[in-house]
């Protein structure tokens, strides 16, 4: 059975893929469906959902269109989640490969640095970094990546340690290949599968961290974020709970979708590797 068909036969994976597809559709269509500034005032303040069909999810305290904010927020969540996870995976894979392949002092130093990063809780690290450098989309991405690259680095290092003893690495040395070329052309690609298997968890965690930073007011102030929307709604939680509940549900479904789809991919490809 092909991996795609096995993926489609797993209900969890299909659910995840559908949630993820909805999120991506929201992110891509945000500026088509809601071309204006999502932070502009669109109607009366605190309009409840399903009252006015031009504002289906109502408005917030300042009269901004909640649905428009939700769509534009999907963009931020997805962009930050993917960018932070990609940065963490790339940095982790490179550091882990260098440490595992070089061994000796290089390994020692790199792993001490990894330990140091790992002892600080990643959310505190992100919080501190954004507070010092100032909130912007790029800074938030770096802040989240700072706390997450250590996991991929450890996994990559362990994999590289076993691969570097193989004959084909000795063969590459005999050919006269440069050690860095051996590490990154010959060893790293074969060490990647277990590192990539971590990506769904990392993307999901990055999306949550971004929401948490925005909730604390440390998100990019020029962008709508779901965390920021929840924080906004908190002030009127009793009178207009939907303002917190709507972005909250969006967040939960997104994290669930990323996780389920990611696990589905890992599972179907892992089975295939196990069989062959």
């Amino acid at each position: 059975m092909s991996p795609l068909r096995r993926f489609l036969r797993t209900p969890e994976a299909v659910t995840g893929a559908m949630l993820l597809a909805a999120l991506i559709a929201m992110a891509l269509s945000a500026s088509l469906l809601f071309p204006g500034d999502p932070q502009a005032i669109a109607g009366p303040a605190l309009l409840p959902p399903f009252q006015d069909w031009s504002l289906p999810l109502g408005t917030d305290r300042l009269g901004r269109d909640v649905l428009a904010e939700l769509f534009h927020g999907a963009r931020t969540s997805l962009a930050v989640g993917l960018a932070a996870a990609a940065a963490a995976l790339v940095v982790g894979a490179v550091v882990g490969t260098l440490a595992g392949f070089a061994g000796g002092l290089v390994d020692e130093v790199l792993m001490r640095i990894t330990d140091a990063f790992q002892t600080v809780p990643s959310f505190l690290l992100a919080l501190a970094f954004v507070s010092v450098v100032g909130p912007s989309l790029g800074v938030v991405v770096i802040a989240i990546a700072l706390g997450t690259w250590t996991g991929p680095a450890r996994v990559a290092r362990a994999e590289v340690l076993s691969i570097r003893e193989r004959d084909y690495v000795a063969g590459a040395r005999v050919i006269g290949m440069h050690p860095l070329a051996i590490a990154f052309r010959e060893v790293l690609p074969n060490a990647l599968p277990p590192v990539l298997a971590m990506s769904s968890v990392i993307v999901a965690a990055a999306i949550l961290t971004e929401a948490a930073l925005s909730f604390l007011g440390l998100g990019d102030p020029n962008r709508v974020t779901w965390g920021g929307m929840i924080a906004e709604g908190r002030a009127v939680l009793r009178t207009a709970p939907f303002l917190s509940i709507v972005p909250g549900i969006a967040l939960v479904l997104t994290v669930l979708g990323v996780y389920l789809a990611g696990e589905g991919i890992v599972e179907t490809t892992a089975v295939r590797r196990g069989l062959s």
Partner: protein
Amino acid sequence: MSLLAVSNLTKCYRRGDKTIAAVDDVSFHIDPGETLALAGPSGSGKSTIARLVLRLIEPDDGRIDFEGSDFLALSGAALRARRARLQMVFQDPLAAFNPRATVARVLDDPLRVHGIASRAERPRRIAALLERVGLIADLAPRAIHEISGGQRQRVAIARAIATKPSLIVLDEAASALDVSVRGEILKLLLDLQRQEKIAYLFISHDLGVIRSVAHRVILLDAGRIAENGDAQTVIDAPQSAIGKALVAAAPRLNRTLMRLASAGLD
């Protein structure tokens, strides 16, 4: 002057709290175009000598002169450049290649690393190398795991000769193959030696094969040289205890020798 001169080579490994000498004060030389065989029981240090000669591991003591210069003194870019002249073929041709590689990439590597051919010229060179080892050029785009074991070992030989080496280390290079394929690979190696004057350090546990392809043989026992001399002389009439034991334990060889002996009696 000899092509490779190894003197007093020693390599120890720690096992628990005692050190064992995997290679113990070994000296030998190989002349251009010559085949020197290394034989000996399992664990006698054959592969360790191969890895030392290739600078895959560093010796504790000793000297290696290759093509007239101190090979152990080289490092970095100078060592990598000199590696073009000293190549290796491994026992397991599947483990010896990157599992993601294609035949073309495997042969492209040495040409690219040593700047032997321009990017545009390389496909032609790769085709020529494949034909040189008796394969068709159409094999180039195939993945390494998609070709047969014999084809794979031919590709390994093509990769080894791509940089025009003067010495190739063959560590059990034909041992993992079927008998018929083994014969073809050995014949290819002999052809290459005759035409390109390549010397071989030929590691094998098969004394019958050594007798037919090697000029000289060294018998190793626990890291030391037990016996050393003309391949046919040593194998037909071993003097050392380990030599006698190895010959006695080689069934195929015994049959051949018996046939030879009976042919001589007729």
